[in-house]
């Protein structure tokens, strides 16, 4: 079931009630059973099989690494485990290219075409827990984490339902200890968890789904638009994917919190970043830490004799891998490659830029800071074009049109504003978008102004009337202003 479905809204309190009523020893079992039921509810046998394989492979390889005598044995265990996890990931996520390749080869060899299995298997969640398994194994190998000997607890570590479908990717040292000491959640846990959950639901159901009406109108048929409307759609999509994915993450974190568990932060005001480097420390944090620790650092260190060139190569490899992880399409590869280029340029020109700013005395200027934030937003948005476009042709069309037709399209856009400015959507929905975006901005400003970096702090720092108004307003917003059609989470497809 999806986190934003009515079924889940019934499922979560039910599981919580059972959790609170059973003995301490049975709590992990309750959560594991709930997680497996949660995954089974998707109705896909291949998913349960994938989870089973990844869990058993990682658990076994983990024990072999921990008990291994000699560096060679441990290395073998590590690579076997990683291969198993990657194999499952690739098999399910790259079904179509694999099936096509198998087909092409068999036809070339003279056999009749037709792939052995139909490429319509689901793969939701696999990318996330396969990566989590790999991180567990590597951390064991590097001896920065303890192996989990209890299979049930390990299975729960892999399948814990709040994070099962779209992460965050949890490090062994973060989540495993918590699973060993499942106590009763405190009142603060419940309050913070519920508030986080509903705030995430608000971002998803009121903001992201509504924005997708606008962006979907453009991205599904880009040739109907030139210039200004494309720019609007791109900006709106940058906001949409943030609201969608951080909304999901908040729902996941909130769900875990009501059981007294803390999942890792996945977003930290990403569009306030002043460099692409910083952006990746604030966006999909669990994933970018994964590629940083397990791809970038080893490659960079391995190529350290190449000095700066080595770092550039490491960046490109890392971000191309990131693109491929997101999907078997050239648009994702280009998206990753773009970020690699951004990072490389940033690293290469960093000292020059710093010296330049110092020379003109603007090193700490607020103007420079805002300029950088705007620039990063623009760069990241250009990359999102490739992420969202249905194919490369559409993506290039958008880039070309915005680059060349923008000034010429201003007049016709104002003339035919319902097509070009409202993107063929109702002005009422646009009005709701505007207000909800103001709420988002206000929340962000409140966070930085009053240091309300988490719902807990908000709850503790605010007077009761502020809290009550917030709870009530959230409740009404969710009832009155959900977007007209529900959509799956964007990161559900990864």
């Amino acid at each position: 079931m999806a986190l934003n479905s009515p079924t889940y809204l019934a499922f979560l309190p039910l599981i919580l009630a059972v959790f609170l009523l059973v003995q301490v020893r049975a709590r992990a079992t309750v959560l594991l059973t709930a997680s497996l039921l949660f995954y089974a509810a998707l109705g896909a046998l291949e998913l349960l099989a994938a989870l089973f394989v990844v869990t058993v492979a990682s658990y076994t390889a983990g024990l072999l690494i921990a008990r291994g005598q000699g560096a060679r044995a441990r290395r073998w265990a590590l690579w076997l485990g990683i291969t198993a996890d990657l194999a499952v990931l690739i098999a399910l996520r790259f079904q179509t290219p694999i099936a096509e390749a198998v087909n092409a080869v068999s036809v070339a060899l003279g056999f009749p075409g037709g792939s052995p299995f139909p490429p319509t298997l689901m793969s939701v969640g696999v990318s996330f827990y396969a990566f989590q398994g790999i991180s567990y194994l590597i951390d064991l190998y590097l001896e920065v984490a303890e192996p989990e000997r209890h299979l049930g607890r390990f299975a729960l570590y892999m399948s814990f339902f709040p994070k099962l479908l779209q992460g965050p990717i949890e490090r062994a040292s973060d989540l495993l200890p918590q699973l060993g000491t499942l106590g009763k959640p405190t009142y603060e846990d419940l309050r913070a968890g519920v508030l986080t959950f509903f705030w995430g639901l608000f971002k998803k159901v009121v903001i992201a789904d509504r924005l997708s009406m606008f962006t979907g109108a453009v991205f599904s048929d880009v040739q109907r638009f030139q210039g200004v409307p494309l720019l609007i759609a791109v900006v709106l999509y940058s906001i949409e994917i943030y609201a969608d994915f951080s909304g999901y993450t908040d729902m996941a974190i909130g769900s875990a919190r009501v059981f007294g568990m803390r999942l890792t932060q996945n977003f930290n005001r990403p569009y306030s970043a002043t460099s692409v480097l910083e952006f990746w420390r604030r966006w999909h944090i669990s994933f970018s830490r994964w590629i940083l620790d397990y791809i970038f650092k080893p490659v960079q260190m391995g190529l350290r004799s190449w000095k700066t060139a080595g770092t550039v190569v490491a960046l490109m490899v890392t971000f191309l891998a990131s693109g491929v992880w997101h999907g078997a399409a050239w648009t994702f590869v280009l998206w990753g490659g773009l970020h690699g280029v951004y990072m490389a340029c940033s690293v290469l020109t960093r000292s020059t830029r710093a010296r330049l700013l110092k020379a003109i005395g603007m090193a700490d200027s607020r103007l420079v800071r805002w300029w950088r934030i705007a620039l990063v937003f623009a760069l990241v948005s250009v990359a999102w074009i490739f992420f969202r476009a249905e194919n490369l042709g559409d993506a290039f069309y958008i880039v070309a049109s915005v680059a060349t037709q923008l000034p010429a399209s201003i007049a016709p856009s104002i003339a035919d504003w319902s097509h070009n400015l409202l993107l063929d959507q109702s002005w009422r929905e646009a009005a709701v978008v505007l207000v909800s975006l103001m709420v988002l901005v206000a929340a962000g400003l409140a966070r930085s102004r009053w240091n309300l970096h988490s719902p807990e702090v908000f709850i503790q720092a605010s007077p009761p009337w502020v809290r009550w108004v917030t709870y009530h307003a959230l409740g009404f917003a969710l009832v009155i202003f959900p977007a007209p059609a529900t959509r799956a989470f964007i990161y559900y497809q990864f």
Partner: protein
Amino acid sequence: MKPWSQRENEGRLGRFAVGVTLWLAILTALSWGYRGVCRAALQQPVFGVDDSADTLVVGDSHPQSSLDPAVLVGVENVSGSGESLFFTFYKLRFLLDRNPGIRRVILGFSAHNLSKKYQDSLLFDESVYPEDFESYYTLLDASGKRLLRSWRRGFLVASLKYDFGVPIQFYRYRPATKILLGQEVRRADFDWVGGFYGSARSKLDDEQIRRKIKLYFLDERGRFTGVSDLVVQSLRLILALCRDRGIQAWVYTGPEHMRFRSRVPGEALSAFEAVRAATALEFPGTWWLDFSENSLMDGAFGDGDHANTVGARIISAQVRDRLAGSGYGPQRTTEKR
């Protein structure tokens, strides 16, 4: 972790209960208000047709695109694209109640109106026209709602909104928003009203025809899934309504191009004939106009199963002549042109 204390918990539970009750109270008040506004919207005196009109055209996109009120005399076309016959009954009854001067009803009825697959998608799935479902819901009575009842989101939202007044996306119901803003409500604000819609273009595309046939008649395995009982029932209700009010009913089958017609599954056509025969027996006073087989040229069709403005003018002229030359007697005529 602080241990839970009994007294603290009682205090918290109490405050929580107060908070939730307060929220529910506010929601109930808002709902009560919105429900009143929605009721008031349907009471608006804007549903009268033109004084000179004594004939209503109802149905889906087929009569909508092919019966031009500019050519026909004394006719008001209120057909809506994608309208299931199930909804047409309630819409017709609503309009007849407010227009006692109507003497004739022309009802669009073709093979696809009977097809279970298509009608079910309009009534139980809203996958084709999701927004229309809510709009037609306002016209249903209790028995109608009972027939459509299910747990799916579309039905729940419509029921919460219009039965209980919960202001879910309240701004999307234009008549209510206009009343709230003190603006004048017009007939066109109601999405279910419909009207003649003529398209000037003409494109006969076999791929598009194939997709239409699949949409109307075939399941994933390419089989015809049978007739919708709800629609047959609705057809009888409509004809009974006309008969009871002394209104002459014409059942009109719109023009279809040969390339479309030849692809309609044989079972669908024979089912259609069977229903027509049965209905003609039960309602002998009904007149039948069948333009499904016709000699219209390619340029008269907007697509495989819809006439464009050119075709509409031709067909409407023929219908006009038939209406002018007819009495109100119980003759049963099947016209094939």
